[in-house]
Structures are given as structure tokens and as C-alpha cells.
């Protein structure tokens, strides 16, 4: 309703309050789901509340809250951003509504519809400022989304046909989870769904849209795409593994491991040659998606690590992309070479960027470190020694290349002179993500720990 109202009636005064209400509603939903331990179907089984749904609603709510604060502050500081805010808010509310539906959906086709709807809402957000570069990036995003999701939907049709041939009906996740041995349609369906969702995640070889879309979008949109949409697509993959992992283990493992390793390899090459700090983080996000795919495919014993990694990296990506926005707003450049001594000139943003970079690189004590260690442990336990070696080598190259580019930018000799005060309001979202990230690195709260454990157990790990 909010989306329709905002898109049909340009209403700048109502836009920010509506975005705030949407963020509060998402947070309330997350708290309500966390508070209630009940697990079960809603709306005649179309929706289902379980540990995974709780976990991903928490991610969505946290990122949306931070992005809302960020947008509110940007409009306060630069009033000329107000025109177009109405449509921005309308599409953002639609985007988040669709993704929340995808999180709670218990039907594979309904999940697909919600992810597709979120992709359609994301397109005008990417070209919000209508620069030629952003329009071009949005076109790539839309084209890859359309093709990737068409492939995934063909997979869902194949799964439904396979279920019919096996004498079963419906694609409710809880229903197909009890399905018996597979057939050719089911195998094909699982393959196509994983390839399609892999394209939506920007996994190689379908990664052509990712860096452009993340680089050319407004930072608030990049944070939503990389932290929320990516996580929800990972959840969609988890639902497929949950339902078909036991009956189609070879396809699930081979596809995810293949795409995961290829993504890590490709993103490593791009990271080594990249000079734009926002694109660097975009390719690091691609590496992360590759690690998650690898962890899900090869190391089901590492399922807990994957969950911790997904949660932690959603915060890292939101923190870093929003900080990129603050840096770009001040220096008007995205080139690493043009920036030195960030921590001296923008102390708090520099600190956020520094800690975000440490977490991005997988340093202790952050969740990404523990997640990577657990995934590596899973690889060893499963005797995937070659994979372990490739994973470690690529991760080391990424670490060195990212560190070589980003550390001088943070710690080098300042070039632009005066230190500039950063108002608390502008830092609130970054401080929120920073606090959560550090807290999560030091201590995983018990409710969250239980959610990680339950999702991991569902995936066969834990």
C-alpha cells in the first residue's frame, strides 16, 4: 500500500516517515519472531516460521534500520536529494516487502515470485539518479536477473513435474522435504534452480552484472542489494538444499562447489587488478558468495560456519558500502589512489572502514574469521584436501591484494588537509553496524547461537 501510494503520488513529506515506519515494522517483526519460539505454518501453509526465517528477518531488519538512518541523514544534509525521494522510498518498501515474503515463504514458486518482484523493485533503485552509467548497470542487472530467474523458474517447473511423476503434489518446502527418490526431472530441476539462483547471487560464470550494479547504485541501494537481497537468495538456495539435498547430493554438491570455486577465482583476479574501492568491495562480496556456495556444497559439517559467515558478512557489506557513500560524498572520488590517511581526516568513518576491512579480510575476532575457520574445518573433515588448498591460496591472495589497496587508503599520509567533524547523526548507521559486528565477533548471543545451530542442523550439519 505504501509503495503504491508513494509511486502514484509524489509526496516528499510522507516519504521518510513511511520509510521509517517500514523499518520499524521490520524490526518489530524480527523481535516478535525472535521472542516467539513457536515453529510452524502460517496462512494455510504458504508461510512458515522456522529458525532460518527468524535469522534472515533479523538480517533484513538490521540492514533496513541502518539504511533508513543513512537515507534520513543524507536528505537532511543535502536537501537537493529530496526530489525523487518518494519513488525511492516506494521502491525500497516494495523491495523489502518482497524479500520479507521470500524469507517467510514455504512454497518454492512463491519464493521465486518474491525474489523476482524484489529484483524488479531494485531496478529503478539502481538507476535512481539516472546517470548513463547507472542506467547501463541497471540494464545489466535486469537482464541477468531475468535470465537467471527464468532458469530458476524452469527448474521449479521441472521439480513440480518430477513431483507429479512421483505421485506427489505441490512444492511446499516442508512437503518436498519428505519426498522419496528422485527422477530425471527432479535432477534437472535442482540443477537449473541452483544455476539460476547462482546467477542472482553473482556467482561465476554469471557475475557480469554484480560489480557494475554495486558500484553504480547509490550506497544505500548497494547496501540493500549486497546485504539483504544476496542473503535472501542464499536462503532460497538453503531451502532447495533443505528439500532436495538428501535426494540429489551429487548435483547439489558439484554445482555449488564448482560455482563457489570459480567465483573465488574470478573475483580474486578482479581484486588484484582493481583501483576503485567500491568495486573492490563488490568483488570481495562476490568472493564471500563463492565461499558461502563452497561451504554449502562441500562442507555440510560446516553449516554452522556458513550461517555465521552469512550473518556477519551482511553486516560487513552494509557497513562498508554505507561508509563508501560517506567517503564518496566528501572526496568525490572512488579511486583508491586519490585517497590517503582516511583515519586522520574522517576519524569515525575511517575507523568504520578500517574495522569493516578487517572483518572483510576475515581477521579475528570477527564472525567472518570464525565462519571461514569452520568452513575450512568442514573441508578437512570431509577430506576435500585439494579444495582446502585452493580455498586457502585464493583467500590469501585476496587478503594481500585487498590489504595492499585499502590499508594505504586508511593509514597513509593524509593529502587533503583538515580533519573534518562528522556529525553523530551521519554516523549512526555505521556505528550500529560496527557495534553489532564487534559484538558478534566477541560473543554470539544465545538466541542467535541457537538459530545458527538450528539452521545448521536442518542442513545436516551443526
Amino acid at each position, binding site marked *: 500500500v505504501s509503495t503504491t501510494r508513494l509511486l502514484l503520488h509524489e509526496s516528499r513529506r510522507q516519504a521518510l516517515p513511511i520509510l521509517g515506519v517500514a523499518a520499524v515494522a521490520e524490526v518489530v517483526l524480527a523481535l516478535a519472531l525472535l521472542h516467539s519460539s513457536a515453529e510452524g505454518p502460517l496462512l494455510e501453509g*504458504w508461510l512458515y516460521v522456522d529458525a532460518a526465517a527468524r535469522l534472515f528477518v533479523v538480517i533484513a531488519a538490521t540492514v533496513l534500520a541502518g539504511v533508513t538512518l543513512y*537515507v534520513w541523514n*543524507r*536528505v537532511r544534509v*543535502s536537501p*537537493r*536529494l529530496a526530489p525523487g*525521494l518518494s519513488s*525511492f522510498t516506494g521502491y525500497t518498501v516494495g523491495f523489502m516487502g518482497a524479500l520479507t515474503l521470500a524469507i517467510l515463504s514455504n*512454497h518454492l*514458486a*512463491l519464493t521465486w*515470485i*518474491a525474489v*523476482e*518482484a524484489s529484483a*524488479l523493485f531494485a*531496478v*529503478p533503485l539502481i*538507476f*535512481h*539518479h*539516472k*546517470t*548513463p*552509467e547507472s*542506467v*547501463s548497470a*541497471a*540494464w545489466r542487472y*535486469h*537482464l541477468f536477473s*531475468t*535470465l537467471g530467474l*527464468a532458469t530458476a*523458474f*524452469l527448474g521449479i*517447473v*521441472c521439480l*513440480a*513435474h518430477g513431483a*507429479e511423476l512421483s505421485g506427489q*503434489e505441490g512444492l511446499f518446502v516442508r512437503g518436498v522435504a519428505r519426498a522419496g527418490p528422485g527422477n*530425471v*526431472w527432479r535432477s*534437472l530441476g535442482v540443477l537449473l534452480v541452483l544455476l539460476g539462483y547462482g546467477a542472482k547471487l553473482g556467482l561465476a560464470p554469471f557475475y557480469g552484472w554484480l560489480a557494475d550494479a554495486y558500484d553504480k547504485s*547509490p*550506497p*544505500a*541501494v548497494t547496501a540493500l542489494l549486497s546485504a539483504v537481497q544476496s542473503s535472501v537468495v542464499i536462503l532460497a538456495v538453503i531451502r532447495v538444499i533443505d528439500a532436495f539435498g538428501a535426494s540429489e547430493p551429487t548435483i547439489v554438491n558439484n554445482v555449488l562447489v564448482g560455482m563457489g570455486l570459480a567465483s573465488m577465482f574470478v573475483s580474486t583476479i578482479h581484486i588484484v587488478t582493481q583501483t576503485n574501492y567500491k568495486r573492490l568491495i563488490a568483488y570481495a562480496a562476490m568472493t564471500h558468495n563463492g565461499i558461502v556456495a563452497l561451504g554449502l556444497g562441500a562442507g555440510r559439517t560446516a553449516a554452522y560456519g556458513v550461517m555465521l559467515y552469512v550473518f556477519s558478512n551482511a553486516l560487513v557489506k552494509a557497513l562498508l558500502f554505507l561508509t563508501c*557513500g560517506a567517503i*564518496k*560524498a566528501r572526496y*568525490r572520488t572512488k579511486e583508491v589512489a586519490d585517497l590517503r590517511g582516511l583515519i586522520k581526516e574522517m576519524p569515525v568513518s575511517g575507523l568504520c572502514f578500517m574495522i569493516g576491512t578487517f572483518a572483510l579480510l576475515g581477521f579475528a575476532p570477527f564472525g567472518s574469521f570464525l565462519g571461514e575457520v569452520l568452513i575450512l574445518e568442514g573441508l578437512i573433515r570431509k577430506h576435500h584436501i585439494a579444495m582446502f588448498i585452493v580455498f586457502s591460496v585464493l583467500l590469501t591472495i585476496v587478503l594481500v591484494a585487498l590489504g595492499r589497496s585499502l590499508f594505504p587508503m586508511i593509514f597513509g599520509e593524509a593529502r587533503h588537509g583538515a580533519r573534518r567533524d562528522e556529525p553523530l547523526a551521519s554516523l549512526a548507521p555505521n556505528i550500529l553496524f560496527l557495534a553489532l559486528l564487534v559484538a558478534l565477533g566477541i560473543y554470539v548471543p544465545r538466541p542467535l547461537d541457537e538459530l545458527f545451530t538450528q539452521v545448521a542442523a536442518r542442513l545436516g550439519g551443526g
Partner: protein
Amino acid sequence: MTTFFVLFAVVALAPLFMGSWRSVLASLGAQALLLAGLVLVESPELDARAQLVVLELVLLRGIFAPAYLAWSVRRSPHAAKIDPIPANLVHWIFALGFLVAAGTFATRTGARGVHEAAHIATFASLFLLGFLVVLSQPTPVGQMLGALVVENGVLLAEELLEARWPILVQLGLAVVFAGSVLVFARFLRILQTTVMIASSVSGAAPDELALPLEEVDVL
């Protein structure tokens, strides 16, 4: 039924090899209308689900989408250049290879009868050739046509299912398809505008979108 799929394949594939953007869009609409006819034949007792499917196929996919996109494409600077599968040996070899692959795939899926094999071969051909169109087209209009061909391949695949989707899912599919058409049309308008701006500001050729505009403040 086999005749139906042969007719469908001719309607769907011929414009890809020797057509223009107009014939591809007309073909997409005709495919939807043919599928609506199939649903009416297969479901003489038109229940609520079947009614919804027929409405979607006729109004949305058969009439609105092709007409609205044709109206949008007509104003695009790239419209005149579209040759869906370019007429050269490389593209035609790939296309024929995809057709053979689709036929082989149909025989290996354990199809129940010739008509099901024809059905599977047709949707697989459309799906694969749609990707070929996307890959071989340099302009947004051509790539959009390829993506729509892929989507129609999936639409035809849905007819494999004996039970129709639940109404909620069918409605959702119709809504996201309509959304997808609106986004494509909006892109065509915006790309036209950006091409015009690019030409006037930098004197660049329309295909070169490297615009030296100062980036505005961003959200």
C-alpha cells in the same frame, strides 16, 4: 496434439531466423494465444484456475505485452537494426546445434509419447535460442527480445504440469510478468533519453554512453 506443438514451434521459431523485432513480438503474442487455446481444449470445464490462466494468456501475454512493447520499441533508436538470430554461418550453426540438442534432450527425458517429446523439444528450443538471441544482440531491444523468448520457453514448459499452479502462485506469476514488461518498457524510454543526452552533451555517437557529466550527490 503433436500437430499443435509443430504449429507452435513454427510460430515461435520462424521469426527468430528470418524476422524483425515486430515479427518476434507478434510471435510472442501468438504463442500466448495458442497456449490459451490449448488450455481451453484441455480444460472443457473451465475452473477458476484455468479461467485465470486463460485471462493471463490472452489479455496480458497475448495482447498487452506485445502491443505495449511494440509501442515502446518503435520509439527506440535501435529498433531498425534488429535481426534476432543474425544471418551468418556461425550463428546459424549454433542455432541448429541448439535445436538438435533440444531434440536429443526430449528423447532422453523419458517422454510419454510423441506429443510430449514434441512439447519438450519445443520449449527447450525456445529456451536455448532465447539465450542465443540475448548473446548475439548488442542492443537493449534485441536483448529484451531474447529474454522474452526465454520466458515464453518457460511458459510453454509450464504446460507440462498436469495440475495448474495454485491461484495465489498464478496471480503472482502474472503480476511479476506484467512488472517485467513495464520495467523493459521503462528502460527503452530511459535509454532513449540517455542516448539523446549523451549525444547532445559530449557529441558522442549514440552507442557511446561515456558521459562526462559530474556525478550528482547520491543517496
